C-alpha cells in the first residue's frame, strides 16, 4: 500500500514527537515539584515560546502547500511534520499553562487550538479511510467536470427529443430533467443527509410504463429513447451524489480547520499582547 503521511519515513515525526513530548512532560513533572507550574515560570515561558513557534510552523504549512516550486522538504514531509507537531501542541499548551483553565481569552486560544487540532486529526483519518471507498465508482470516475459534462449532454439530448413533441411528452421530459438536480446548494446537507441514492432501476421502469399511457402513439418510440436517457441520468445523479458526498466529507473538516486556525492565531497574538500589556515577569 502507498505510504501515507502518517507513516512517512517509518513514522519519523511520530516517534520524534512522542519522545519530545515525553521529555517535556518529564521536565514539567520535575519542575512542578519545586514550583507551582504556570506560564510565568521559566519552564512555563519556554513551553509558551515552543508552542507559539510550533503554531507558526503549523500555519506555514498552509503557505508551503501552495508553493509547488519549493525544494525544501517534500510536501509529504511537511504534512507529516504538520500533523504530529499539531497533535503535540495539544499537550504542549497545557504544560505552558500548568493545566489551569478559566473563562478567559487565554483559555479561548487553547479551545480554538484544540478545535483546529481535532478537526485536523479527523481530516487526517478521513484521508486515510475515505479514498478506498471511491473505488466503488470504477476507474472512469475522476475528480473534475466529467460528470457535469455528461449530465449536461444527457439533458441536452432529452431536451432535443422533446423539442417538437406533445405537451405531455414535454412535461414528462421536463420533470425528468428536473428530477434529482438540486435547485440550490446542497453541499453541506449532503454530509448528514444521505439521499436516496439507491432508487432501483425496476421502480424507474415501472414509473416510465405508467407515463406511456399519456404519450401519443406517434411519440411512443421516441419516448423509449427518452426513458433510456432518463435512466442514464438517474444513475449518473446517484453516482454524483455519492461521489460528492465522499468528496465533501474529505473537505468539510477544512472549513473548520482553516478558519479556526486563523482565528486561533489572532487570539494567541491577543493573548500574548494582553499578558505583556499588563506586565510580564518571569518568576522562579
Amino acid at each position, binding site marked *: 500500500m502507498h505510504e501515507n503521511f502518517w507513516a512517512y519515513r517509518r513514522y519519523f515525526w511520530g516517534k520524534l514527537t512522542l519522545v519530545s513530548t515525553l521529555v517535556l512532560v518529564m521536565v514539567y513533572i520535575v519542575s512542578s515539584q*519545586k*514550583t*507551582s507550574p*504556570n*506560564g*510565568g515560570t521559566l519552564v512555563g515561558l519556554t513551553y509558551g515560546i515552543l508552542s507559539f513557534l510550533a503554531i507558526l510552523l503549523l500555519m506555514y504549512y498552509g503557505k508551503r502547500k501552495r508553493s509547488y516550486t519549493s525544494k525544501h522538504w517534500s510536501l509529504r514531509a511537511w504534512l507529516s511534520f504538520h500533523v504530529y507537531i499539531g497533535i503535540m501542541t495539544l499537550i504542549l499548551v497545557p504544560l505552558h499553562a500548568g493545566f*489551569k483553565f*478559566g*473563562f*478567559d*481569552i*487565554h483559555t*479561548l486560544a487553547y479551545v*480554538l487550538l484544540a478545535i483546529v487540532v481535532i478537526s485536523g486529526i479527523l481530516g487526517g483519518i478521513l484521508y486515510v479511510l475515505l479514498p478506498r471507498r471511491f473505488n466503488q465508482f470504477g476507474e472512469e470516475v475522476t475528480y473534475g*467536470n466529467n*460528470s*457535469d459534462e455528461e*449530465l*449536461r449532454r444527457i439533458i*441536452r439530448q432529452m*431536451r432535443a427529443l*422533446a*423539442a*417538437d413533441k406533445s*405537451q405531455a411528452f*414535454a412535461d414528462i*421530459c*421536463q420533470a425528468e*430533467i428536473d428530477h434529482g*438536480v*438540486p*435547485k*440550490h*446548494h*446542497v*453541499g*453541506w446537507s*449532503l454530509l448528514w443527509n444521505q439521499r436516496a441514492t439507491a432508487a432501483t432501476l425496476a421502480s424507474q421502469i415501472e414509473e416510465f410504463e405508467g407515463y406511456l399511457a399519456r404519450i401519443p402513439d406517434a411519440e411512443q418510440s421516441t419516448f423509449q429513447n427518452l426513458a433510456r436517457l432518463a435512466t442514464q441520468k438517474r444513475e449518473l445523479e446517484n453516482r*454524483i*451524489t455519492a461521489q460528492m458526498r465522499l*468528496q*465533501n466529507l474529505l473537505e468539510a473538516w477544512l*472549513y473548520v480547520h*482553516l*478558519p*479556526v486556525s486563523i*482565528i486561533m492565531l*489572532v*487570539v494567541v497574538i*491577543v493573548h500574548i499582547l*494582553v*499578558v*505583556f*500589556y*499588563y*506586565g*510580564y*515577569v518571569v*518568576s*522562579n
Partner: protein
Amino acid sequence: MAFTIIRHNVLNDQAATQQTQVDGNSLEIGRGTGNGLVLEDLHIALRHAVIEYVDGRYVIKDLETTSGTYVGHRSVRIRPLAHGDVVHIGNYNLRIGLASREGPLTIDVTRQTGDEGADGRAAVSYLARYRLSESVWTKGRLTVWGLVLVLGVPVVLLLFGNISWGKKTWRATNLLAPGGVTQAHQFIGHDCASCHTETWKAPTTTSCTPCHPSPVHHANQVSSPDCVSCHREHRSDHKPLTKMGDHFCVSCHGDLQTDTGKPPQFAQHIRAFEDGHPEFSAALKGPHESKVTRVKLSDKAALHDPGAMKLNHELHLTPERMKKLGFKPLACANCHRADKQGAYMAPITYTEHCAQCHPLEFDERFPGQVVQHGKQPEGIQDFLKDNFTRRCLERSVEQTAPPQEGSDAGTERRRPGQALALPREPQVATAASVLQCRDEGVRDAQKRLYAGGKQSVCGLCHTLQDPVAGAQLPTVVPPTIPERWLPHGEFHHQVHMRAMKHRTADNQALCESCHRPDLGASKSTQTTDILLPGIASCQECHSASGGASLQCVTCHRYHDEGMKSIRKPMQAAR
C-alpha cells in the same frame, strides 16, 4: 409587414447578437420548430402564442396554453402591444420595440436563466451545487465572521462591564486575567489599574507598599527583588501568596553575596535545611551591652546567658530537694506556659511564677507584708520608713526583751516556709527615739533585702550592684529575659507537643526531649545555661527520613521583623 427578432447569445464566452427577419402579418411563437420564433423551453407549448397585425396595430394572443403568456407580469389572452412592453413566455423575455404604431416590430429575446446552456450560454455546473467551495460559507467568510464573533463578543463584554445575576457578579475583566486574584486581594474588585499602574510593565513594589510596608530582608543584601518577582497573582492555583518554594530562598542563599563584598555572617551556601543550614545562633544581649551578639548553640564555650537573672533549674525541678525545703515538686509547665497562640512561651513574671514561694518580706514583725517587686532600693525606701515609723509610734511605751548577743538574724535570709524568728524591738520614748527606732528598722530591713549576695531577699535572684558614689543603697541590675532567643526562626510549641505526644505521655520528658537532651533542664544548675535545642534536635524530624516539613518558610519569613522582636525588657513591675 415584417418582424425583426434579435437574439443574444454567448459563444465561446463572447456575447453575440443574432438578428433574423420574419415576413408576414403574423409571428407564431412556440417550442415547435415550425414557429417563426422558436423558444427552447419544455414549459412552453409547441404553439404558444401569436403576434398579429390587426386593424393597424400589433396584438399578442395566447393560444390557450397552460403556462400562459404575460405582458408586464400580467397574464393575457389577447392584448395590443406597445413600445417597451415586455412579454414573458416560459423562461424567455421578449422586449417589444415599435418605432410607430404601424412601424416594423422588433422583438429583443433574452432568457431569464441560462439553466441548460441554451442559446449557447455558459454552461451551468450542476456539480457546483454539490461542491462545498461553491457554498455561501466559504473559508474566507467563515474566517471573517468567526473573527468578528470571537473578538467582538469579548470587546462588547468589556465595554459592557460587569454582569450581575442575583448575588453573583461576573466581571468582564476576568476575560483578560489569566487567573483570579487570591482571596486577600479580592477587595480590590478587579480594578486592574490599582496594581497595574503602568502599561507594558509589571506592578512595581510601590503598588504593594501602601498596604504592605514590609521591612527589607537584610541590610546587607545585594539587591531587593520587586514584590512581584516572588509573589505572583493571577495564578489560579489558590495558594496564598506567602507560600513560597525553597528555590526562592536558595536562589540567593545558595551562594550568598553581600553588598559589602564580605562573606556572610552565618553561612554562604545554604541549599536546604539539611544542606548547609548552620547551627542556630542565640541572640544574646546582657543588661550592660549595647549590641546583640549571636552565639551558635554548638559553641558551648561562648554560650552563656548574660541576662543577669539567677535561676537554678535543677533545684526547682528535683522533687527531693524541693520536698526538703517544704515545697511541692515543680515541673517545667509550672512556669513555662505557651502564649495565647500556643506558639511561644509566655513571659515569666514574678507575680505569677515566683511570688508564691519567694515573697519579698522585709521584716518578721510585718507578717504577710511585702515590698513592691520591680522597684529599685531607692524606690522602696519611703515605703519602709513609713512602715517602721508607724510601728515605732505604736510601740513607743512597750519594752521588749533585748536582743540576744551574737545573733545574726538580720543577715540570715529566711528560707521560704521557715518560721519567722522573733525580731528585736527598739526602745521608744521620745521623737528622737522614734526616729532612731525607725532608722534601725529600715536599716535592718535593707540589710535583709540586699546584703549578703545570694543570702539576701533580692540577691537570691537578682544581681545587685554596689552603691554608686554618693549613694548608700545598691542597684538591682534589671534582668533581660528575651521573648525570643532565635529571632529569625519561627516556632510553634503546641504544634510540636501534639506531634510528639506519641513519644511519651510525660510532659516533663516531652519538654526535655528537645531542651538539651544531652544535659536535661533538670540537671542545669547554672543560671548562664541556655537550654535551647540545636539544629540536630530539629533534624530528627525535619529531614528526608523524618517526614516533617523541610521548607524554608516553615520557620523563616522573608519579611521578618528580625532583631526588633528580641530583648524586650521583662515587665519588671509585675
